[in-house]
């Protein structure tokens, strides 16, 4: 049977790649150290497959067809299309059988994800993969979560998705090790009148709620304050899915830094499976 070996989270600001050479040395050091620690933890968990949750930044989907949840079932995925990510692999291995299993478990449980046989994984998926510098990239099962364009999934539904992923892993008959990586958040505002604002108080309260673990207070916090913390903050949904998959316990913050250079309140964390 498949084994759930850990859940992880990291921010994914595109400027981490685009403007890397412009950052102060100390900022590069912080980002490098924190992504390397995240990578060390993931490597120690030895996953064969990494389920990765991210927004799609208008790479695969447009207003014509905009899924709230899309599971990438391709045997491979295209690398990031952004020119500043050109040094990342152009093709990333997937796991069709496991991804299809997740979709089937979801449909059997009255969830209705869309599926894609061919996704391009933009900076949202690939910044953490690039900066962790894992010795070997696990097979990636990407799950696109609509954090960008209303209507978006409720926080309550994200908890349900996390529990569903845990169930899908536990019921998969193959002997593989599976981890989850939530990409995105914490607070940031992009293309809005508040662009560049970081709500550090929200981020600290959010981290405290993840540490406390309980579903109710975390849901209340996000329902009440996520919207005002900036449009990019909606990516905290991905952290909620990882949190719920890990049983809403075991959150361990690696680091949090409000980083104006990248316009993001950056967090790195893991959960014990």
């Amino acid at each position, binding site marked *: 049977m498949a084994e759930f070996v850990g859940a992880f989270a990291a921010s994914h600001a595109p400027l981490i790649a685009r403007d890397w050479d412009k950052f102060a040395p100390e900022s590069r050091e912080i980002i490098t150290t924190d992504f390397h620690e995240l990578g060390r933890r993931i490597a120690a968990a030895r996953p064969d497959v990494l389920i990765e949750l991210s927004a799609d*930044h*208008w*790479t695969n989907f*447009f*207003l014509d067809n905009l899924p709230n949840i899309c599971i990438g079932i391709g045997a491979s995925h295209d690398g990031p*299309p952004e020119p500043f990510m050109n040094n990342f692999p152009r093709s990333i291995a997937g796991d069709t059988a496991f991804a299809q299993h997740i979709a089937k478990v979801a449909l059997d449980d009255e969830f209705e994800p869309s599926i894609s046989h061919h996704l391009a994984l933009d900076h949202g998926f690939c910044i953490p993969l690039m900066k962790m510098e894992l010795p070997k990239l696990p097979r990636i099962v990407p799950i696109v979560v609509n954090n*960008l*364009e209303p209507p978006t999934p409720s926080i309550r539904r994200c908890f349900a998705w996390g529990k569903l992923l845990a169930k899908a892993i536990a019921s998969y008959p193959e002997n593989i090790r599976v981890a989850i990586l939530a990409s995105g958040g914490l607070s940031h505002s*992009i*293309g*809005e*009148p*508040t*662009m*560049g604002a970081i709500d550090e108080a929200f981020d600290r309260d959010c981290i405290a709620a993840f540490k406390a673990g309980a579903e109710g207070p975390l849901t209340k916090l996000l329902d009440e304050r996520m*919207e*005002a913390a*900036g*449009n990019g903050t909606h990516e905290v949904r991905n952290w909620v899915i990882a949190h719920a998959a890990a049983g809403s316990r075991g959150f361990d913050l690696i680091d949090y830094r409000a980083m104006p250079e990248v316009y993001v309140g950056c967090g790195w964390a893991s959960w014990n499976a």
Partner: protein
Amino acid sequence: MATDYWFSKLCYDLQRPGAGAEYRADREKVLARYPLSPEVLAAIRADDVAALQPLVNAYLLRFYFGAAGMSDDTFMAKLHAMQKLPAAKEQAHG
């Protein structure tokens, strides 16, 4: 304010390789491919961030002005100026 589909489509299409360069070289040639309203066309021609911001997803707006050649600093200054406008509060996270 309602999403403007065709302006959104323009923003989205400018992500294609080479599309930004084409747009910067001959904006009118590209704009002619889209059935944009006169009001939206005027806002585009004026690089009017405040007028366009409520019409499109904020991420697409950022991408659009990057493709159109506006620096991040200028784009953010124009966005921040919106906070002084009377309608800014209700537009802030739309």
